[in-house]
């Protein structure tokens, strides 16, 4: 076909992919898969103009393009940087990127209240995932955290400004989905805050979507507040005939009760179809919905088990590479090891094992 956009070749973490001209590095990486896709805290594909703010998706470009193979001097934000033909990008394989990302995690967390135990977003929070996968376990910030006065921005949406990471997603949502935006960012620096214009409340048929786009627990659903932890509820795909929106939603059950309704999200946590407030806040009975079946839950989701357990398995290749380069293999040349088989056959060893068995069986019986 003549109209087809020409394809360009991009290499990300050693994996090649062909993408149309104009694709960003982030989108190219996402097409390869989650093992190379950079994390994103502010970039949101459905929202035009988003991205570039959180610096979570910084990557190193080691070759700019086929024509000009010079590396880029600084780390670039992959969500806003267009891919060039022959570009070579290092994401998880670059120590510089890993280090910078640790810094971003730290910066995002220093003023975050870390109140996950009481936060409704916990379990589906992008900041939790981002910090768990890319951060360090220690904190060096000993100063007082900055806090904000609580503010009421409407009867359906709860604003918890202390948790906000200023990704601007909700501002773009209100700009692009609703007719009139009444909230925005006030102030500057670390005291910049999401607020409404002179104590206004959010009023529009689609403002509820700010809850879905918020990566943290800064904007949550008041009708769902403190009702359940995310992992105790079961998502079900459902639809209804709605005049305002597509009506395609996810209905969250706790037992027989519909505890909340959200838009369906894709693999990257991005909303597929924005839904209206009637669907989100008012249709809370099973009879309101045509149930399609259980939602597909990704294996690494917290709703499936063991997200933070042993089978984390999101980036096995990277972990293996890291282990291969950073840890020495065990030295097996010691004498004792060579004689292990002989030792196992010896009488002393068998006697020892029997003793052990007895000891452990005793413990069990005590319990």
């Amino acid at each position, binding site marked *: 076909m003549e109209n087809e956009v020409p394809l360009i070749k991009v290499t990300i973490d050693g994996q090649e992919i062909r993408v149309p001209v104009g694709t960003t590095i982030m989108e190219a990486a996402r097409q390869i898969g989650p093992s190379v896709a950079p994390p994103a805290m502010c970039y949101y594909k459905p929202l035009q103009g988003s*991205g*570039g*703010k*959180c*610096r*979570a998706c*910084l990557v190193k470009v080691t070759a700019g393009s086929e024509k000009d193979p010079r590396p880029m001097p*600084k*780390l670039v*934000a992959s969500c*806003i940087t267009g891919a060039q033909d022959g570009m070579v990008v290092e994401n998880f394989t670059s120590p510089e990127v890993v*280090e*910078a990302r640790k*810094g*971003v995690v*730290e*910066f*995002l967390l*220093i*003023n975050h209240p870390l109140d996950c135990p009481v936060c409704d977003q916990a379990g589906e929070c992008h900041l939790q995932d981002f910090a768990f996968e890319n951060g360090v376990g220690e904190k*060096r*910030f000993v*100063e*007082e955290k*900055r806090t904000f006065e609580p503010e009421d921005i409407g009867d359906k949406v709860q604003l918890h400004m202390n948790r906000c*990471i*200023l990704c*601007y997603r909700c501002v773009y949502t209100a700009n692009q989905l609703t007719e009139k935006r009444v909230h*925005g*960012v006030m*102030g*500057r*620096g*670390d*005291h*910049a805050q999401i607020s409404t214009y002179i104590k206004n409340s959010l009023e529009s048929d689609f403002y509820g979507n700010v809850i879905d786009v918020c990566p943290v627990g800064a904007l949550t659903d008041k009708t769902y507040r403190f009702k359940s932890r995310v992992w105790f509820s079961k998502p079900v795909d459902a639809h209804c005939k709605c005049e305002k929106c597509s009506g395609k939603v996810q209905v969250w059950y706790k037992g027989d009760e519909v505890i909340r309704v959200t838009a369906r999200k894709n693999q990257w946590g991005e909303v597929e179809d924005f839904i209206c407030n009637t669907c989100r806040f008012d249709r809370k009975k099973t009879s309101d919905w045509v149930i399609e079946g259980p939602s597909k839950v990704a294996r690494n989701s917290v709703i499936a088990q063991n997200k933070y357990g042993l089978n984390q398995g999101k980036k096995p290749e990277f972990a293996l590479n890291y282990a291969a380069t950073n840890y020495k293999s065990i030295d097996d040349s010691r004498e004792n090891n060579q004689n292990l088989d002989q030792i196992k056959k010896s009488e002393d060893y068998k006697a020892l094992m029997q003793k052990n068995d007895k000891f452990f069986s005793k413990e069990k019986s005590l319990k």
Partner: protein
Amino acid sequence: MANDIKILTEHINIPGIETFEVYRKAGGYNAVEKAIKKMSPDEIVEEVKKSGIRGRGGAGFPMGMKWSFLAKPEGVPRYLVCNADESEPGTFKDHYLMKNLPHLLIEGMIVSSFALGANKSFIYVRGELMYVVRILEKAIEEAKAAGFLGKNILGSGYDLELVVQPGGGAYICGEETALLESLEGKRGNPRNKPPFPAVKGLYQSPTVVNNVESIANTPWVINHGGEEYAKIGIGRSTGTKLISASGHIKNPGVYEITLGLPVDEFMNSDQYLGGIRDGHYLKAVVAGGSSVPILPANLFYKTANGEDRLMSYESLSDGGFPTGTMLGSGGFIAMDETTCIVRNTWNFSRFYHHESCGQCSPCREGTGWMEKVLHRIEHGHGTMSDIDLLVDVAKKIEGNTICPLGDAAAWPVASAIRHFRDEFEWHINHPNEATKPGAVYMGAEILA
């Protein structure tokens, strides 16, 4: 020696130079006549390229190159914006120039707009300088009445409207894309680049943003030719530069120097700064506004290789970040031995914390963090690990932000620790002494 050449401040002492008549009598607006009647826009751009003049706002990017990058699609207006949002601590040269020679800036704006094909140009003045806005507006009225502005300038058919726009007083709006956002009436957040303003700037049209001093140089370049301009100065640092000197020197003020002037002469001769005040000696210098790395006296006079340092872009940055600094915007701050470097660094850091726009996370959170740690050290609650923490935080901000404010916040902290680490350690080891008034460090009483 050609050190006496004055390009910008030649007529500054003539009484009444801020009025149109006096300025015109002193040879003003000749460049407009020459440019519009005898030259084509491309010729002017070529002259500016030949002159080798570099942007005077801080980054030092060649001005002719910036002009030639301007995209020229059909049917789309082009804009010239003059960045007069000078708010860097220690820099006050544009203020001085606009206050005393408003017509020089306007003449430069007319010539530059004609060269770039802009029919509407803006001067974005810092909000605190409302009286300068009024001076400029009055000057524009006078120029309009004389036929140098407005419709059909000098009968050539070229129209130009000049608008003076006061800003809200934010440091971040000195960053060119934040300035454009602010000019459009939005929140002054820097934009993601690319696209650069030369392609999509003000109202999504190609735009050039230049510093006041850069634009004020163009009339001289038109009158005397670019090659003549390139002869002044040294190497790739051509022309003259306004330096706003402050601190513990005998003669603070704004000086026009020829680039390539030896630092020693600038610092100690009576014609310029006249040396450090009597009975004291130089401890440290911030050579180009608060965001450039601070230098101790020995590295300031001589480079790490033992060469004499000159006031030029190349010589000041000789040695890179480890042992050099930058000419920056020309905000020269000299500090004698009574200055507490920790307090000074905290003060700079407080400024960047206050002025961060809060858009990208490393700068928003990192500047506040650095300020809090420095506040702790200054007030006697620091620990040794805090020093390494500061270095690490500065490293994680630098280069990872949308705009250069992150770098500007990180450099003063990193360089102060690099060159004055022992003073930070002294503050931590002697918390009671260091916080008392009249503390003595290295034999000198520190007034902090």
